[in-house]
């Protein structure tokens, strides 16, 4: 045990001990706790990532710590969210779209009191690019470490290898880290990965209470006095105790009881009524760009036949799935892009559940020589019931038109492995199109470019020069109107080719206690701005 842990322990334990004299029943300690420092703390019940390192993991829970412990050059703001400057005060881009000069805000302090400078920005980008996992893979295709340089104490130049339009949308992914602190904690050239997995090196509104992080289990954060953006509320939350609850039933009980102030954002549709009725609780709807789709192996017989794929698209009972399984908590998304995002054609109709049409296309496929009698396999994901429910619905509809489909199961890691090679890739599987950066490229570009082949993103095994050309062109130009035109055209083409079966755009649901005020969902994942919150009473 380290010395500061001991001090922390002694102080708090001493205080608690004094509040709960010996001889009182055990639960009195909790009351004392609730009346003491604990009551002013937000008890966040959202999931925790296994690491606090903002560069190596990029998922829904990690947004919570990335946004609140760190600052980035850009952040997402507005509705629908767009990338807006944060640490950057001025951005100048060259006409060819390859060179970008950023002016960094002066006077921003890291949690250790040192000033955030261009050196820190350069260090952070180089680190992100050097690490094999997490954020890096999104940048490495267009950016090299040498391309990031400091041109002054507060100015940074980034040179891309080719013009890349989603670049600005990607900037909120990169947390700016304290170079001096990181280098002091670097062991064996590890970019301080081991250290920063449990500590913070940020300049954000909150900082980690040292030693409090236990992966998946707990994290304590404290507000940073004098945070440069200030605190919008007069009594902001000083202390945040993250206590994720893994079990579904216990999670609801915990938030009903007040053990936690909020749950994660996956409250199941069948639990919504219960949360709405529970005293002291409210159900927060968080609009999501996340899409849900079935991936179809376009390179394998019979799915390599357009009519067979159209038969699949007509066979899926979209309304039934959204109304019954999701209890109406999602909107139908007819194409590859989230319906609220620019680039999605407003008039796109997509496919409807229509077994007659499905039969017609199946007959056409049969006539064209597709092996429509082969049993195809739907690989559902273990632990994600929705994928299995989708599989069952599709299976029963396909049976009606004479197509036999088997349901297999795989864990995520297993499915990822399968999709790396065309031969092992599933006939059909399903996943969510999560938001990494808010740009149409995040969905269409990542899923349907030829560059994605060999990863789970390219698991449709779709090879189409024309679409690939449109997606590449949309990446290369900074002209927003032109990009929109290209994405709309690509979306229509993908739908015409029935490449995948696109199903819905989801809504996330979180149970939040009434005493939590000012709650506003984050743009990406759990990345809400805790500064806006306060506790009533």
């Amino acid at each position, binding site marked *: 045990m380290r010395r500061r*842990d*001991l001090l922390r*322990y002694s102080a*708090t*334990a001493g205080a*608690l*001990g004094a509040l709960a004299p*010996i001889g*009182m029943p*055990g*639960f009195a*300690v*909790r009351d004392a*706790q609730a009346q003491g*420092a604990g009551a002013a*703390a937000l008890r966040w019940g959202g999931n925790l990532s*296994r*690491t606090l*390192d903002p560069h*190596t993991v*990029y998922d829904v829970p990690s947004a919570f710590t990335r946004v609140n412990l760190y600052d980035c050059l850009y952040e997402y703001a507005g509705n629908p969210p767009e990338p807006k400057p944060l640490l950057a005060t001025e951005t100048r881009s060259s006409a060819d779209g390859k060179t970008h000069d950023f002016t960094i805000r002066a006077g921003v302090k890291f949690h250790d009191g040192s000033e955030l400078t261009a050196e820190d920005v350069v260090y952070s980008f180089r680190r992100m690019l050097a690490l*094999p*996992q*997490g954020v890096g*893979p999104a940048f*490495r*295709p267009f950016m090299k470490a040498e391309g990031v340089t400091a041109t002054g104490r507060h100015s940074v130049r980034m040179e891309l290898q080719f013009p890349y339009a989603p670049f600005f949308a990607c900037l909120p992914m990169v947390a700016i880290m304290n170079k001096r602190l990181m280098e002091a904690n670097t062991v064996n050239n*590890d970019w301080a*990965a*081991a250290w920063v*997995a*449990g500590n913070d090196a940020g300049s954000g509104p909150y900082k980690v209470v040292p030693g409090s992080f236990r*992966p*998946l289990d*707990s994290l*304590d954060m404290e507000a940073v006095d004098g945070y440069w953006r200030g605190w919008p509320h007069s009594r902001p939350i000083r202390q945040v105790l993250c*206590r994720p*609850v*893994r*079990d579904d*039933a*216990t999670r609801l*009980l915990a938030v009903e*009881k007040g*053990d936690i102030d909020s749950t994660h954002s996956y409250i199941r549709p069948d639990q919504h009524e219960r949360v709405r009725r529970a005293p002291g609780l409210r159900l927060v709807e968080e609009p999501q760009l996340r899409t849900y789709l079935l991936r179809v192996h376009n390179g394998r017989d019979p799915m390599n036949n357009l009519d067979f794929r159209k038969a699949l698209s007509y066979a899926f009972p979209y309304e039934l799935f959204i109304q019954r399984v999701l209890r109406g908590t999602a909107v139908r998304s007819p194409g590859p892009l989230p319906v609220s995002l620019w680039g999605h054609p407003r008039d796109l109709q997509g496919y409807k559940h229509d077994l007659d049409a499905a039969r017609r296309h199946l007959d056409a496929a049969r006539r064209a020589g597709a092996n429509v009698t082969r049993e195809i396999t739907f690989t559902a994901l273990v*632990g994600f019931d929705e994928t299995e429910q989708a599989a069952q619905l599709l299976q029963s509809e396909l049976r009606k038109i004479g197509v036999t489909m088997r349901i297999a199961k795989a*864990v*995520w*890691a*297993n499915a*990822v*492995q*399968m999709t*790396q090679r065309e031969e092992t890739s599933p006939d059909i599987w399903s996943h969510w199109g999560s938001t990494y950066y808010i740009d149409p490229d995040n969905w269409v570009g*990542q899923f349907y470019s030829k*560059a994605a082949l*060999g*990863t*789970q*993103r390219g698991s449709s095994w779709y090879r189409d020069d024309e679409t690939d050309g449109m997606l590449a062109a949309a990446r290369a130009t900074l002209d927003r109107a032109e990009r929109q035109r290209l994405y709309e055209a690509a979306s229509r083409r993908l739908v015409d080719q029935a490449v995948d079966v696109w199903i819905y755009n989801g809504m996330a649901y979180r149970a939040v206690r009434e005493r939590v005020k000012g709650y506003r969902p984050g743009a990406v994942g759990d990345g809400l701005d805790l500064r806006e919150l306060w506790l009533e009473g």
Partner: protein
Amino acid sequence: MLALILRRLALMIPVLLGLLVLVFVLTRIVPADPAAVLAGEQASPEQVAAIRATLGLDRPLHVQFVRYLVQVASGDFGTSLYTHRPVVQDLAERMPATIELALASMLLAILVGIPLGAVAAVRRNGWLDQIIRVFTIGGLAVASFWMAIMLQLVFSMQLDILPLRGRVDAGVPAPPFLTGLYVIDYLLAGNLALARHALWHLVLPSVTLALPATATIARFTRSSVIETLQKDFVAWERAVGYPRRVMLWKYVLRNSLSATVTQVGLLFGLFLSGSIVVEAVFGWPGLGDYLFSAITTADYQPVMATTLAIGVIYAVVNIMVDLVQARIDPRVAEQR
């Protein structure tokens, strides 16, 4: 006794080596590529291949195994691909939680199960025996997650006398690490209030975990006591005038315990595996949650180390069971 311990420890080595091989092979033959999962959804095939090479996963299996053996032999159980923390550190935080829960459950199961079984045997076919029989059948039949939720609803939500989840409440600091068992560590730190606080948190999960084991122990004790009561020495003890109470609770029970103690060793395995469900429901930060998340992301070093650690715990507990048995039954001590 010392010789017995040493011999058992020596026997453990091949068992653990076997376990090591098994775990290694299992984590390597599952069709999940740690590199691909680690790389994330944005990675390209080349990037995944690079990670694979960095991790040495592109080397032949036997080379990887030898490297792993060398690594383990030097006391290095690897690093999690995700947390970047040494697996040993994660285990040091989480293993005590699982052990505390398992020990508390075992204690509970023994302290309740043995007397229940003995009473049932002595009052064989009486109403008390019938009640105990219903309890034991129920204890084995009830699913532990259901039991857990019922206990939470009644004792935490309705009556509000026991905490819902966790080892301590949010904001209560962990005790200084001595044994890793919170109740004991708080006590050693001299904080009685927090020791009680931790004990209170231990109640519902350990009761849930202990229930099926209590039933098993009660059943074994019952049949064992009934068998012992038929023995000649019981007739002799009665005939020479041992008071009934002394005879039953001292002389008969000790003879019956041998079978029960063997069960306890086996049941500890049940505690360790059962703790995965119970830990999840009660938010108990033990090995179950850790292993689960490691398996789903193919984080193979923690998977191997955790499995090995569970194997060691199980083996050590069973050695202890043997020692206890040798203490109970002098003939066992001589045979071994």
